[in-house]
């Protein structure tokens, strides 16, 4: 139920809607729950037709650094 699917923003439809690509399937998603603006190429999480979160690419890089720390700290 709390399943949220990672998707790629591929078209800006209007102020409250974007088109997303979910492993090749395109559908519209509502952006009402998101404060930050979206751009084509952003990764987002979609839950029941609404975007609930936008991937933070800087943070994703930080995550990878944290992995390295944990994985190298034998």
């Amino acid at each position, binding site marked *: 139920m*709390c399943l949220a699917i*990672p998707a790629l923003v591929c078209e800006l439809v209007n102020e409250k809607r974007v088109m997303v690509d979910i*492993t090749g399937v395109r559908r519209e998603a*509502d952006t009402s*729950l998101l404060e930050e603006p979206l751009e084509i190429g952003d990764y987002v*999480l979609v839950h*029941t037709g609404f975007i609930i979160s936008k991937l933070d690419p800087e943070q994703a890089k930080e995550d*990878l650094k944290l*992995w390295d720390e944990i994985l190298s700290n034998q």
Partner: protein
Amino acid sequence: MSEPTQKYRDKDVVNILIKKIKTLAEKSSETVRIMHVCGTHEHDLVKAGLRSLLPKNIDLIAGPGCPVCVCSAQDIDEVLWIADNHNVTIATFGDMMRVPSSTESLYQAQGRGVDIKIVYGVSDAIKMAEKNPETEFVFFSVGFETTSCVTAAEVVRTKLPNFSIYSSHKIVPPAMELLLQRDDLEFDGFLAPGHVSTIIGAKPYEFIPEKYDFPVSIAGFEPVDILLGIYSVLDQIIDGTARVDNMYKRYVKHEGNIAALRIVEDAFILSDARWRGLGVWPETGHEISDKYAHIDAKKKFDIPDLPTEDLRDGCICNEILIGKSKPQKCKLFNKSCRPDYPIGACMVSHEGTCNVAATYEEIIWEE
């Protein structure tokens, strides 16, 4: 194309992480019990076979994280009462269709003529109501914070005379506190749900280490995400420390999704909620606030007190929901209660603990 998830499924990374977890676990002579409270965690970790890879002294317990499973029979009884007595069309998630009420499931009710539509989300139900102004629609809304914010977005903007919402929404952190307060449960750390946390952030869990000196880690859903979560909870347990670690930072901000939280606060009020087989848990639910009474099915229809029964035929879903028992210990499991013929709520959804155990033929080690 989707998010490049491959690196979160990398076999080598998984193997190294398992090794690290084993090294840590060896420092404990006792069994370490970690509880997650998310149906998607249960599904994804069993699908990836993670329980079988973990050292034997780590027990990963499934808590009450499947919203369909925790939905009380009474909520379904009431929705069906509205349908039967007010000639209403019910719209709801497909997951809800086979969940038993006191007497029947929504599918069975559909079989005797009740009009029930399966929708992907609340917005689709609203579109149906717009297209059919002569028909009265009720959207039966279940889910934790991930779903309730979506419902909230429609509560605050929808003004249709023929549409209302029955809220069976529940919230996670106060339920976690009630689990901590139980004398009949023993566990050492929480794995917090990643997608709920995209909305609420890390803050609402902070009382757990502060008040209970109890470790929490927020985890995502790929195998590496889940293992990193387990690693960080285990690290805290072994170390004797307690804090909230956010291991899903690429999607979860400390303060959560502010815009969504603002809408939720406007649309809902905190309420007591009925959990299947577990009674009423104070302040663990979300009801539509008075400001939006026009869209609240519980106010629109005068629902009487109905006799209700959460558990049937010896079902122990109440114990399975809080991790007190395992599906394989239930005498109905995979016999009279199966994914294709569920008796208990936990056997219905693909995220239900019993359904997952049956689908992936999970074997548990006998003590």
